[in-house]
């Protein structure tokens, strides 16, 4: 059989962002896949040289548009640990609220894109229509739709007034209702199952060996989530990771769909337990030493390595985003599947390329 090399991307109808895959095909079956990156590489890590450690918050937020507040949270937590700052309890809960609202928004975005990948246009639009409500919550609480910019070193910038939290809860009730109407479609529909069940299988051992993170890891039956560490206020909230066993595209879809409910439940719980008090503390001094800070992003484990040297600029800031870790597992999912399924499999890891390349 003759081998053909098909360039998949960087511009492809299913990709919101530019990823290039060289697919080696035998007839219609993928034999090998090699990724090529570098289409949106911005060198954000090196901006730590010319921006001080407070300004880096806004830069970290812009690593990724979809999970911006979680990037800032991870960075702030790292710096706080380095400088020995104890964040007020209220700020911790507020961080959780914004992070989980972001997770809802990110998962709804992904569910839409995933539906689009297998050609379910009306489902795509429905997901994004629901997401718009969540974006409104972001805008009304944080001030911006996407980069809400609420985290600062030592706490958060903005507080939630009681009438605002009531409004958030009522909006989230509506979001949950509308998402529930999609449950039958996303989890049980014939078309969806036909395109996703048994496609792109990643076994539990493979997932661990190849360093998969987030829903890709949990979709393969590993109940591992950085939120289990109890950072911010997660230790005070009831939380168990959502797991699916099969490791195929459907399992990852299922994990993300159920996590949407879970994130809404976490926001509710955090609001009900929201303690009174200050929302930030004053920061004095400069960060010194090195630290690894980890949080759970919608796409998985996010890791920041921060090295400070007692000056206002950081010595080194290294960002390992979840998609970066999920690309090697993706490469092992692709061999053996049909070319027509490649978009679905690639989308099933929730690729965020501007995150990956930073």
């Amino acid at each position, binding site marked *: 059989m003759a081998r053909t090399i098909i360039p998949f991307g960087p511009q492809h109808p299913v990709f919101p962002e530019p990823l290039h895959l060289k697919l080696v095909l035998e007839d219609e079956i993928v034999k090998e896949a090699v990724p090529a990156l570098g289409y949106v590489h911005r060198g954000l890590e090196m901006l730590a040289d010319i*921006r001080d450690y*407070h*300004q*880096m*918050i*806004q*830069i970290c937020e*812009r690593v990724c548009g979809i999970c911006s507040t979680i990037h800032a949270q991870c960075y702030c937590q790292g710096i706080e640990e380095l400088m020995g700052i104890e964040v007020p309890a209220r700020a911790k809960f507020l961080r959780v609220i914004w992070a989980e609202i972001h997770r809802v928004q990110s998962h709804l975005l992904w569910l839409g894109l995933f539906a689009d990948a297998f050609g*379910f246009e*009306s*489902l795509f639009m*429905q997901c994004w*229509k629901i997401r*718009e409500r969540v974006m*409104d919550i972001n*805008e*009304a*609480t*944080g*001030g*911006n739709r996407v*980069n809400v*910019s609420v985290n600062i070193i030592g706490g958060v*910038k*903005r507080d939630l007034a009681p009438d605002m939290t009531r409004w958030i809860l009522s909006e989230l009730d509506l979001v949950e209702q509308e998402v529930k*109407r*999609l449950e*039958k*479609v996303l989890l*049980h*529909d*014939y*078309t969806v199952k036909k395109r996703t069940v048994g496609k792109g299988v990643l076994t539990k051992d493979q997932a661990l060996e190849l360093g998969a993170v987030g829903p890709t890891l949990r979709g393969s039956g590993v109940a591992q989530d950085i939120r289990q560490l109890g950072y911010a206020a997660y230790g005070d909230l009831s939380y168990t990771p959502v797991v699916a066993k099969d490791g195929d595209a459907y399992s990852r879809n299922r994990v993300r769909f159920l996590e949407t409910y879970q994130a809404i439940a976490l926001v509710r719980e955090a609001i009900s337990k929201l303690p009174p008090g200050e929302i930030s503390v004053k920061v004095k001094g400069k960060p010194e030493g090195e630290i690894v800070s980890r949080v759970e992003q919608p796409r998985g484990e996010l890791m920041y390595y921060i090295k400070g040297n007692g000056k206002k600029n950081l010595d080194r800031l290294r960002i390992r985003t979840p998609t970066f870790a999920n690309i090697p597992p993706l490469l092992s999912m692709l061999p053996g599947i049909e070319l027509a399924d490649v978009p679905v499999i690639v989308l099933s890891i929730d690729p965020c390329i501007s995150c990956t390349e930073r």
Partner: protein
Amino acid sequence: MTEGIIVFNMTPNVLRNFFSKSATRLYPKETRETFGNVRGELYNKIEACIFCRTCARKCPSQCITVDTKEATWQCDPFVCVYCGVCVENCPKKCLYQKNEYRKPAIEKEVIFMKGEIKKEKTEEDQQEK
């Protein structure tokens, strides 16, 4: 019913959408009311400004240029990321953000404001330093 074929699950949603009001707006004819806290267009109440350069130093995108001698304040709104750091740090609280976003434009422009240096203002500036 067996596991078999479950189809037309999307149909109730489609019908619901068909009979409910449109999810989109006829923008720009019809616009949504803005939320109270939104970080929109950035401006300076130049008569209160002391040209201390705090905003220019704190800005993560470095879109603000302040000339202390000439008493000018400049902002490139197309470089600004609307994070609100300058507004929070302004000692005179003369910077403010509107609740509306800047409209898309086909040409770039720079917000240029000229004030005047008052005697007592410079003294205050030195005290802060």
